[in-house]
């Protein structure tokens, strides 16, 4: 049978948790389909990490050690991955759906003229064929996607499964990667956005509004008063910030602030994955939305299907009355 190639990712000097999750998926597929598992570990000063990955699910590891691979860049990363695909003859290439993974994986698939499925939460073999499960319509529907052809590239949602817990006895082989001069994409650096405004991660209570709030002034008139009545902070979902209704520091979600308050109230937020990732571990979640099928109700403890413009002001009034 063929080879599964895991493209491991390094973050902050360590192999990412998501890469061990890929190992878990690869080892399960290999056990079912008789594949061999190989991995690519690339970067600068990676010898120990390559050894570690070979023992923790990565199998035989190609170690691509190079100054140019120290930080992610589409040009250098795709060279390293292509070299590992060539060396392994992989029929399935697994990457994580991270900012690096989603940037480079489709290019690899196009270059190989391979089947490509992104952001999967489940990958399995059915009758020898690879079947992927992923969300569509911003999390509102699940899709079952079948693949065919000799080669497949798949990206997997971080956190989709638990990291590989067993051990493997892979060996590490150096992989030479050529970097021709005159690359047309160059890594420049990382900018850390200065944090300003409220640090939502410290708030005990957060009241967030979404697209359903409808207009910037409604945040002042409807959402903020409820947050004030509870002594909490106001937050928002991405579409609100994108529309310029509120500044970015109000944004809760994977590209904003990740919060875990004692109480999170979501009003007019349907619950796109990117928002859920930022708040689903809150201690208690109350959701108010007009759409009974909104994904937010799946993570909420208490839900109300209704008009937030009726319920939120009435709730604010009742809370103020209850406090006396």
């Amino acid at each position, binding site marked *: 049978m063929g080879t599964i190639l895991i493209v491991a990712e390094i973050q902050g000097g360590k192999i990412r948790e998501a890469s061990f999750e890929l190992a878990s998926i690869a080892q399960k597929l290999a056990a079912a389909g008789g594949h061999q598992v190989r991995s690519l570990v690339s970067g600068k000063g990676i010898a120990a990490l390559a050894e570690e990955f070979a023992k923790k699910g990565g199998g035989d590891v190609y170690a691509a050690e190079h100054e140019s691979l120290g930080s992610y860049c589409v040009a250098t990363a795709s060279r390293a991955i292509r070299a590992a695909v060539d060396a392994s003859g992989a029929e399935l290439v697994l990457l994580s759906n991270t900012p690096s993974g989603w940037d480079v994986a489709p*290019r690899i698939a196009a270059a190989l003229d391979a089947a490509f499925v992104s952001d999967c939460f489940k990958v399995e073999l059915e009758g020898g064929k690879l079947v992927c499960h992923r969300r569509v319509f911003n999390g509102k*529907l*699940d899709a079952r996607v079948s693949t065919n052809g000799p080669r497949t590239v798949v990206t997997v949602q971080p956190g989709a499964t638990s990291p590989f817990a067993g051990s493997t006895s892979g060996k590490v082989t150096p992989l030479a990667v050529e970097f021709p001069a005159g690359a047309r994409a160059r890594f420049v650096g990382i900018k850390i956005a200065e944090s300003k405004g409220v640090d939502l991660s410290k708030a005990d209570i957060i009241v967030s509004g979404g697209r359903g709030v409808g207009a910037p002034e409604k945040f002042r008139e409807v959402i903020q008063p409820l947050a004030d009545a509870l002594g909490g902070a106001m937050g928002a979902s991405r579409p609100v910030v994108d529309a310029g209704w509120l500044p970015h520091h109000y944004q809760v979600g994977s590209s904003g602030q990740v919060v875990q308050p004692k109480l999170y109230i979501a009003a007019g937020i349907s619950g796109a994955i990117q928002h859920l990732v930022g708040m689903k571990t809150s201690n208690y*979640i109350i959701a108010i939305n007009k759409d009974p099928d909104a994904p937010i109700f799946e993570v909420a403890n208490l839900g109300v299907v209704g008009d937030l413009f009726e319920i939120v002001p009435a709730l604010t009034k009742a809370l103020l009355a209850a406090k006396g």
Partner: protein
Amino acid sequence: MKILVCLKQVPHQDARLDVRSDGSWIQEDNIKFEINSYDTYALEEALRVKDATQAEVVVASIGPDRVTQALRTALGMGADRAIHVKDPAVEGSDPLGIAKILAAIAKAENPDLIFTGFMSDDGNFACVPPMLAELVGIPSATAAVQVERKNGTLSVSREIEGGAQEVVELTAPCLVAVQTGINQVRYASLKGIMAAKKKPLDVKTVADLGLAGQVGAGAAKIKVEKIAPPPKGSGAEMLTGSTDQIVSGIVGKIKELGLL
């Protein structure tokens, strides 16, 4: 300078998503469509370059008759020319097939820059833009939240995790797939909409692009077999009744949590 913007028309964000009886996709009859939200930001980014440099902005889209409306909207916002790939042979294409069609257009148009949205609001694959760049042989950057032009290079800030941004420099010609919120998207003015009626809108077939037999269901390497609402977990405890009943239910819960 020439800029190509790739647009996808998708079901309106507030459209009812009913799954077809065979489960293959959603029911598209009688629902509203709109330009994919990410793509409106891509178009705006291109129009800003046009405002500064007089660049020509060409918009391209693939799909049935209804796509004309999306292209007319883009022309109304300020794009100069539109290309509509309308051909039943496109049906069933996978994202790589779509990328091949767009690559054929890009090779014929030879733009200096290509702007696209980061992903589509329906399929959420986020893969056509890098595939297109690979097929054309140009560099690409995804999830762009800031783009600065300096002569022949673009400095692109990509949104990565934890609120950080990764800066990458691309040599033109190149492709940038933009994240939502990168700019404030303009509306088409009445004057713009009137002017758009006279702007060229070319309709092309797959054969016109030299891709007969290379795209469509027969060439697709992946297939969305079935879509369905996600399995319901235990979900939330739902409060029903009058507004007063609902409110007292919530207040009771907040008291119970010791937060009042």
